[in-house]
C-alpha cells in the first residue's frame, strides 16, 4: 500500500477559528434550550439539513452545570460556523451567557425566544430567515492549510460482538498509533467498558500517578454500574458471542493501540497537546441521574465536546448512527454484518477474518479515510443524513492534578 495519505494531507484545508483551532466542517448549529423549544428548532433546521445545518439541544428545564459546559463546548466547536439558540422563554437554561460565549468567538449567533416572537410559526420564520442569510455568509469562510497533527479523533464502539475485538478494534488501534505518530490527538473511552483492563492501561500511562488515576476511574465505573446492577452490556453483545463485560472490555480496549496514555480527561476537557487520552464518562458522587451514558450517541457528544473533529465508530452487530457537528466513520468488524449493512459502512474490517488481510493494512486504510474525511469527503452516515444527538443530566468533579502530566 502506498503512502497516499501523506500526499493528500498536504492539501487538507480547515476553517480557522478565533481560538486557533481549525474545523473540518462549517456547520450551522440550531440548539433548543429546553424540550419545549425542540419542535421550533427542528423546523428551523429541517429545510437546511442538507446544507450542514444540524439540530442539537438539551431537553431539561432544571439547571445543570455539566449540560451548560457541554453546550458551550459544542457551540464553540471548531466544526461549528454559526449558532441559533432556540428558547421557549421561561426555562432555566442561561441563554444570555451561552450567546455571549459564542459571540466572543466571533461566530454569528442568533437567539430566538418563542414567547417573545409571537409563537411557533413566527419563531420558525424568524429562525429560518436567519439561517438562510447566514449560510450565504458561511459559504465564503476562508480556509487555511490543516496538518494531520491538528486533528482530534475520537474512537468508540457500539453494537459490539465477538468479532469487534478481533478485527475493527485492533485495526482502529493501529490507526490510532499512526495518528499519534503524526502528532494528532486521539481520545478513547469509556471506563465502564474497560473493566478488567485497568492494570494494562496503568502500565501504559505516562507516569505512575496517572496510572493510579486511571485505575481509580475504572473502579468508579465498576462501582457505579454495580449500584445499578447492570454492566454496560446489552443482550445483543451476548447473542454476538461476548460472554462477560471483561471480554467486551478487552475487545474495546484494542481500539487504544499501543501508544503511551498521555492523560485522563472528562467530557468537555480539551487535551492540552497531541497524544492518547482516556475519557472518564462516569459521573462523580452518588449516582443521581441514571446510567452514565444511556446510548452510544451520548458518548459521541461528549467526545465532540472535548474537541473531536471526527469519530471512528467500530461495530460488529451493525450500528447505523452518525452525529451532529462531527462526522462519524463506521468500521465494520463482522463480515456477515457488512454483507447486510455495507451501505452504512466506511471500512470493511471483516476482511481480516475472511480474506486474511493484515490488521496493519486495515489500520492504514482507516488512517487514509480519516484524512479524506478531514479534507471534506462525507462519511457514509453523513451521506445518509444521520445527525443523531443526545444530551442528558450528569455531574462531574474537575479532573485531578495528576490526570494531565503533559499540561504542567
Amino acid at each position, binding site marked *: 500500500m502506498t503512502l497516499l495519505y501523506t500526499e493528500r494531507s498536504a492539501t487538507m484545508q480547515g476553517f480557522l477559528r478565533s481560538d486557533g483551532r481549525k474545523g473540518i466542517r462549517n456547520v450551522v448549529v440550531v440548539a433548543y434550550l429546553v424540550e419545549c423549544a425542540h419542535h421550533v428548532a427542528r423546523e428551523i433546521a429541517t429545510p437546511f439539513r442538507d446544507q450542514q445545518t444540524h439540530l442539537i439541544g438539551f431537553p431539561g428545564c432544571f439547571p445543570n452545570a455539566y449540560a451548560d459546559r457541554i453546550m458551550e463546548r459544542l457551540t464553540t466547536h471548531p466544526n461549528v460556523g454559526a449558532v441559533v439558540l432556540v428558547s421557549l422563554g421561561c426555562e432555566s437554561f442561561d441563554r444570555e451567557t451561552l450567546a455571549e460565549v459564542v459571540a466572543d468567538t466571533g461566530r454569528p449567533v442568533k437567539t430566538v425566544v418563542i414567547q417573545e416572537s409571537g409563537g411557533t410559526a413566527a419563531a420558525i420564520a424568524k429562525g429560518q430567515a436567519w439561517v438562510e442569510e447566514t449560510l450565504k455568509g458561511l459559504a465564503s469562510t476562508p480556509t487555511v492549510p490543516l496538518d494531520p497533527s491538528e486533528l482530534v479523533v475520537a474512537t468508540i464502539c457500539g453494537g459490539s460482538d*465477538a468479532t469487534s475485538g478481533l478485527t475493527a478494534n485492533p485495526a482502529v488501534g493501529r490507526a490510532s498509533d499512526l495518528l499519534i505518530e503524526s502528532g494528532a490527538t486521539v481520545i478513547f473511552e469509556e471506563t465502564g467498558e474497560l473493566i478488567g483492563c485497568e492494570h494494562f492501561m496503568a502500565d501504559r500511562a505516562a507516569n505512575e500517578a496517572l496510572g493510579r488515576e486511571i485505575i481509580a476511574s475504572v473502579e468508579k465505573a*465498576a462501582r457505579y454500574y454495580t449500584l445499578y446492577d447492570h*454492566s454496560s452490556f*446489552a443482550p445483543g453483545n451476548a447473542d*454476538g*458471542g461476548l*460472554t*462477560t*463485560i471483561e*471480554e467486551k472490555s478487552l475487545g474495546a480496549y484494542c481500539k487504544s493501540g499501543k501508544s503511551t496514555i498521555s492523560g485522563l480527561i472528562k467530557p468537555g476537557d480539551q487535551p492540552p497537546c497531541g497524544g492518547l487520552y482516556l475519557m472518564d464518562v462516569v459521573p462523580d458522587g452518588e449516582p443521581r441521574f441514571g446510567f452514565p451514558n444511556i446510548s452510544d450517541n451520548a458518548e459521541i457528544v461528549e467526545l465532540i465536546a472535548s474537541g473531536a473533529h471526527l469519530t471512528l465508530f467500530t461495530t460488529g452487530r451493525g450500528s447505523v448512527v452518525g452525529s451532529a457537528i462531527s462526522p462519524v466513520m463506521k468500521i465494520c468488524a463482522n463480515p456477515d454484518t457488512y454483507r447486510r449493512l455495507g451501505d452504512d459502512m466506511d471500512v470493511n474490517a471483516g476482511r481480516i477474518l475472511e480474506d486474511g488481510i493484515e490488521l496493519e493494512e486495515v489500520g492504514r486504510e482507516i488512517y487514509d479515510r480519516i484524512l479524506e474525511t478531514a479534507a471534506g469527503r462525507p462519511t457514509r452516515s453523513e451521506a445518509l443524513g444521520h445527525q443523531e444527538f443526545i444530551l442528558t443530566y450528569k455531574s462531574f468533579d474537575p479532573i485531578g492534578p495528576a490526570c494531565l502530566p503533559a499540561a504542567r
Partner: protein
Amino acid sequence: MDDPRLLRLAEDDNVCAVRITIAAGETILIAGQQRPVPAAVPTGHKLAVCPIAAGEKVLKYGAPIGSATQAIAPGEYVHTHNVQSDYLPTHTLADGQRYLDSE
C-alpha cells in the same frame, strides 16, 4: 498445531475464537485431536483449547475474561452457560428469544 479456522490471540489463552462459522456436525482439530462440533459455532464465538477446571480463569487476549462455572473440556463451546464475569453479571435475552424483524 491449531486448526486454521481457530484464532488464538495470546500464547497462554485457554480459549480460541473461530474465524468463520463452523457448522454443526463438523470436526475441528484442537490439541492434536479432531473434536466433534455438535452445534454451530458462529464467527467470533469461542471454543476451549485445553481442559478448564470449574472456578479456573478463562483466558483470551492473554487476560481473564471471567471464571468457569463448570469443568470445560477441550473443543467445548464456551459462553454464558459455563463462564461468568468476575465483575458484573451478564444480561442476555430470555431463552428462545431472537433479534428478528417482525413478519
